[in-house]
């Protein structure tokens, strides 16, 4: 394989990786799922209760 052929292969692989990354980010966004106010209050209460119990 020549250097030119290798470059083409690397570029193709890089493009494929970029496509996969885009799809992955769409499926699993980095933004955390927003917690509703009721759930947030309960989570804080539960954390405090466990803290008290040691």
């Amino acid at each position, binding site marked *: 394989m020549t250097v030119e052929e290798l470059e083409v292969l690397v570029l193709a692989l890089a493009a494929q990786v970029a496509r996969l990354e885009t799809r992955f980010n769409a499926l699993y966004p980095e933004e955390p799922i927003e917690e509703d106010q009721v759930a947030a*209050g309960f989570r804080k209460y*539960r954390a405090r209760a466990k803290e008290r119990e040691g």
Partner: protein
Amino acid sequence: MAESIAEGVVEAIRTRLEGIAEDNGATYWFTPDRVIRTPTLTEQCLDASLSTIYALIPDEEEKVEEASLTLHGDMRLDLALATRFAPASENPLNPPDPDRWKLQNRMARDVQRRLLDDSTTPLSWFGALGVENLEVLIIDRTPEHTFLQGWALVFLRIVVRYSHLVSAP
């Protein structure tokens, strides 16, 4: 197929709370529209078409060896007690009556009275589940945890102790 004792305990508590019937505070203040079991409390649990909702939420169960073939289970669970509360204003200088805090106290009283009622043999409503004790560990009315528009909410943390054979959890 028989369910576990833990399952029986949770259902007994749910059924016990479902039986609360308000009599304008002589015994109880609220009749719950629904007593639900939920893995956690979310907005979805607080259905605006209902007035009073009690939710049972599971937590850890600690197992302790009592004798060679007998164990104790200390099962903790949380109760979230919610009733509709939508006053025109919560101005502390001109508060509604009842205010949020009073409603929280009424719900907490109702549930403690129902679970710890001593007018019959204590805890006999658990039947043959081997329940030895039920304690209320925490009552949480703090606004940081309970303040919601449209609802008065209070949390109770309880622990139920029961014993069972190692082979029959």
